[in-house]
């Protein structure tokens, strides 16, 4: 076994980093959409809106109960066969769609738990001074629920960044896809994949650091 080709690895870094915007872009688009969808699903669950509640439960169960890769293949290869208007769905769109639906199912449950976890007596106190339900949600419940939910949601964002690597199976040349191509050209598989692993690792550590800072700020009101 030969020693690692460090020059090759160093040269690879800028090439791979040029695909980072696509990787992060898919993750961020997925995160924003998943958050919006998850908030809606959580509210349906909290208020137990008749009809929608059952559909939401089914949705959550399906998207948590099946592998993300299966869901991505279903959207990319499967859906265009049954829905003709989706014929030219591209890999990036399918990835964002899959990430959104898959992660919104998980996030909805954490958001719901965070809302339900806000002390019921504060809700009564807000009502007792004449606040409406919307006011008490916006000013008392959601700010506190956010504090509880944010660490978990950040973890999902980190998972989502790693999950974007599955997009290469749909033919998208993002960070993972680019690495695969580079490795196939140089035959230096170990060097290529250890380089991309370190890049993912670095991004995740950076985010974890941001997460700790954010939690510290959010907990300001609760420190004794």
């Amino acid at each position, binding site marked *: 076994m030969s020693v690692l080709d460090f020059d090759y690895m160093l040269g690879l870094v800028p090439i791979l980093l040029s695909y980072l915007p696509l990787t992060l872009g898919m993750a961020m688009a997925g995160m924003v959409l998943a958050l919006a969808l998850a908030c809606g699903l959580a509210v349906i669950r909290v208020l137990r809106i008749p009809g929608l509640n059952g559909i939401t439960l089914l949705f959550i169960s399906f998207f948590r109960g099946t592998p993300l890769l299966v869901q991505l293949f279903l959207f990319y290869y499967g859906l265009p066969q049954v829905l003709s208007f989706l014929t030219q769905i591209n890999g990036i769109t399918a990835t964002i769609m899959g990430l959104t639906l898959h992660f919104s199912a998980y996030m909805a449950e954490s958001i719901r738990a965070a809302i339900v976890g806000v*002390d019921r007596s504060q809700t009564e106190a807000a009502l007792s*001074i004449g606040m409406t339900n919307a006011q008490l949600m916006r*000013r008392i419940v959601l*700010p506190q629920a956010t504090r509880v939910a944010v660490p978990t949601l950040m973890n999902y964002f980190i998972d989502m960044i790693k999950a974007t690597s599955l997009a290469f199976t749909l033919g998208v040349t993002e960070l993972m896809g680019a690495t695969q191509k580079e490795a196939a050209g140089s035959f230096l598989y170990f060097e290529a994949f250890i380089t991309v692993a370190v890049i993912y690792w670095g991004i995740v550590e950076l985010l974890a650091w941001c997460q700790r800072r954010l939690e510290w700020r959010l907990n300001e*009101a609760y*420190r004794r």
Partner: protein
Amino acid sequence: MIKVANLVKRFGDATVLDGIDLEIDRGEIIVVIGPSGTGKSTLLRCLNFLERPDAGRLTLGDLDVDVTRASRADILAARRRTAFVFQNYALFANKTALENIAEGLIVVNRWPKARAHARAREILERIGLADKADAYPASLSGGQQQRVGIGRAMAAQAEVILFDEPTSSLDPEWVEEVLALMKQLAAERQTMLVVTHEMGFARDVADRVIFMEGGRIVEQGPPSRLFNAPEDPRTRDFLRKVLAAAPSS
């Protein structure tokens, strides 16, 4: 003036309030006593529509509603005319002491923030917590939290402040400061309806003491009369028990 006529509240088959009639004059301090599970909390919660009564008529100043027909607007109006002090303080955990007091003024009364904060500072001064304006509830003692709870109720400028066992959750060391604040409010003739087990407070401060049992008002009168010469055997029985349990008060 506040008037409650034939107030009824049921939970399932249980009739928890069984036709309560009550009139409270402006500036009057009323203490409600009675055994556990008698409906004392439920009475206060119905006045504030935290529970929806099943029958009765409610007059709060210029508001006069049949509770069964109360609209959303009536309920909000009733809540603006009553303020609630909770046993467990129920402060907004994401707001400072100052913000807890100013919140209702800003959101419900739609005061500009600066004016609401100025008023909240006046109230903090009166409750002796001017130096804790920027403290969050988690960093306050139980007694301080309850004083902020009372300050929040004071800010509402309600017809009446409803106190549901305001000292029952407190460590003994904090009870006195909360009672002192309530006495201060009583001296300012703030209308108050207080559910409490503090018989000393009832004796010293109340204009009228109401004894409730089984969802009804059994007996009421000035504390001197009710404590020294209770007429109903149930009142006598109850007083003997609580006074035996707490001889010091």
